[in-house]
């Protein structure tokens, strides 16, 4: 006789909900420096174990250890620290600006600064980035003007994208930063196409793209991996696993037996899983993947294991779906604190210098905000010329849009 047991439907649940004491004891975190750094021409199949562990460089005392240590000059590390601190200050500032009703919406990247900044610094400025909506640190690290970012958020007359999009949906062609969509995951296979074009033209530039853990459930995520693998596209595909997709924990996007990095294995790609709060580990992983891509060895999927310290956006209250103090309990710490500790540990930084830098980035954001606000905000009625509303739909304005312009009185 066959066993005719009663079936039951499994609905995944996160370990911690509001009111629970945060508990991350089940996370398996290998010590820093424990892993070998394989040569860039290692076959994808042999790299499978890297999808189930964590590449870590900074240990608990702030020392950089092991084969993945990228051995960066202090000057570059200080730039990384400054860019991360500037990103955090910018986020804090714009969050308050939204709360004051001066912009409609905002998305912070608090806790994820190392992913964006280290990725930007590990690549060439000419490499093309296809971002999700939480890559402001990447743009800041590339030196894009804060004022332009703020004017975009304010949708004022100097908004580089003419008031067309919600705040944070930046576009910066001159900085090789693709227009942010807002539709999830669409940029991932686009990045693969860009990389294929670069390879077709025998260029030396590569592409990099980012999605969140939730977006890996979208079909375009899988299309990107497959096309990247089939055509050996020079692209670095990053999953920022910040544990939460608005209120859905990452177990809703991926069965907890697997990891996001392991998605690469079935496609024949290397999948690296990295401590996303470790600036040096993120840098090292991107550097490895970039070397591999530039050597015509194809794409890499990197999972950045991190934690979204704040809400998804200004439109949700994370305390309603997770413990309020979960971020404090996050075992991989704060990426800024960890890099600061490292710089102090190697003797090139001090608490005083850190405080002074902290003050500097706060002043810079405050003054830039003052300047942006003096240009205007959507709330005060400053916005691009109304006639521009009908531009850029097509290269030339067709007759029916011209008729509508007339009707709209422009």
């Amino acid at each position: 006789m066959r066993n005719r047991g009663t079936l039951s439907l499994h609905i995944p649940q996160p370990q911690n909900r509001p009111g629970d004491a945060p508990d991350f004891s089940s996370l398996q975190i290998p010590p820093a420096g424990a892993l070998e750094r394989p040569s860039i021409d290692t076959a994808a199949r042999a790299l499978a174990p890297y999808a189930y562990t964590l590449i870590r460089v900074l240990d608990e005392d702030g020392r950089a250890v092991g084969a993945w240590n990228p051995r960066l000059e202090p000057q570059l590390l200080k730039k990384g620290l400054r860019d991360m601190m500037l990103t955090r200050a910018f986020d804090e500032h714009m969050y308050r600006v939204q709360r004051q009703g001066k912009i409609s919406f905002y998305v912070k990247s608090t806790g994820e600064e190392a992913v964006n900044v280290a990725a930007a610094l590990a690549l060439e400025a000419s490499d093309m980035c296809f971002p999700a909506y939480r890559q402001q640190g990447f743009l800041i690290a590339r030196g894009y003007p804060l004022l332009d970012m703020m004017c975009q958020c304010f949708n004022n007359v100097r908004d580089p994208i003419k008031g067309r999009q919600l705040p944070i949906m930046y576009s910066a062609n001159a900085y090789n930063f693709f227009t942010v969509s807002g539709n999830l995951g669409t940029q991932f296979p686009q990045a693969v196409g860009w990389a294929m074009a670069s390879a077709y033209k025998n260029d030396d530039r590569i592409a990099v793209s980012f999605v969140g853990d939730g977006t890996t459930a979208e079909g375009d995520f899988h299309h990107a991996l497959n096309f990247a693998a089939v055509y050996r596209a020079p692209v670095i595909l990053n999953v920022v696993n910040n544990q939460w997709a608005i209120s859905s924990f990452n177990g809703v996007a991926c069965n907890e037996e697997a990891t996001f990095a392991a998605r690469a294995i079935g496609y024949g790609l290397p999948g690296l899983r990295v401590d996303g709060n470790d600036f040096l580990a993120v840098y090292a992983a991107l550097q490895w993947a970039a070397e591999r891509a530039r050597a015509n060895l194809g794409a890499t999927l990197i999972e950045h294991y991190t934690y979204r310290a704040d809400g998804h956006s200004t439109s949700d209250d994370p305390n309603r779906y997770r413990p309020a103090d979960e971020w404090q309990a996050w075992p991989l710490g704060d990426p800024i604190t960890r890099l600061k500790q490292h710089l102090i540990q190697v003797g090139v930084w001090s608490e005083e210098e850190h405080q002074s830098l902290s003050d500097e980035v706060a002043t810079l954001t405050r003054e830039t905000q003052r300047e942006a606000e003096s240009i205007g905000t959507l709330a005060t009625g400053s916005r691009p010329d109304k006639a521009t509303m009908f531009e850029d739909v097509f290269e030339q304005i067709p007759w029916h849009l011209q008729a509508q312009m007339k009707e709209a009185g422009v």
Partner: protein
Amino acid sequence: MTAMNMIQALNSALDVMLAKDPDVLVFGQDVGYFGGVFRATEGLQKRHGPTRCFDAPIAESGLVAVGIGMSVYGLRPVVEIQFADYIYPAYDQIVSEAARIRYRSGGDFHVPLTIRTPYGGGIYGGQTHSQSPEALFTHVTGLKTVIPSNPRDAKGLLISAIEDNDPVLFLEPKRLYSGPFDGYHDRPVQPWSKHPQSEVPDGYYKVALGEAAVVREGSALTVLCYGTMVHVALAAAEASGIDAEIVDLRTLMPLDIGTIVRSVQKTGRCVVAHEATMTCGFGAELSALVQEHCFYHLEAPVQRVAGWDTPYPHAFEWDYFPGPARVAEGMRRVLAS
């Protein structure tokens, strides 16, 4: 000049552009070594090399997305979706991405992408090889939609589409690939070689986007149509003896409103004909425009002849397809009122 069928003309357009512009790439399912299920890309890989014309995974969203990424790099990719019926997985990439990237980036990026796809019925393809989804795309602002009706136009329009700096959906009436099908399914198939528009200029030339063609001058009424229905309307005019003026729109977006208005103001009566289902079809837009622009010249309400509002039914191909008898009936309705 060379006599060509529509497939040969499309192949010639791709061949010319691959030779002319190293930034043109052609790819899609089965388009590389094999040359496409309809043979539109036959010989291109051999002539231009495997990096210029190649096979792609069966993933329409991925295909279009990769084309967008290549466009952003600066190439002019031509993507083939094997049947228009399979384009829906790519809808997000077409609607939310290709069509909006110029606008949403404030003109910072643009997408010179061409998406070729065979559409329409008359081939016993059932509901997965016969659809006419043009209205789902003409409704999307930022996207151009082109439908040729003969080999000469097909080549010139495709070259224009590839050189256009906006994304273009290029819908190919697959029943016309091998001949100017007029809807008489029970008569011998006519080859293109007997049709004057099968004389295709050699080499490079363009037929401008956004320009309709009056393919038959007449005084009794105007038929607005495109693709296969151009030939059906011509047959209907001949069979009924009605002196219809037949306008081949050629480009649905942007639409040549001038030619439409001139014709309808002259005839005072208008029939709109398409294979696609009637409700919310492109004919609804045409009817509204004719009403807005020609109301005081109209002698009768605009009549629509279209596919019934059902999925395309395999065993009822010719009960479904709006053939010459139905178009002629539409003409008589517009003349009777």
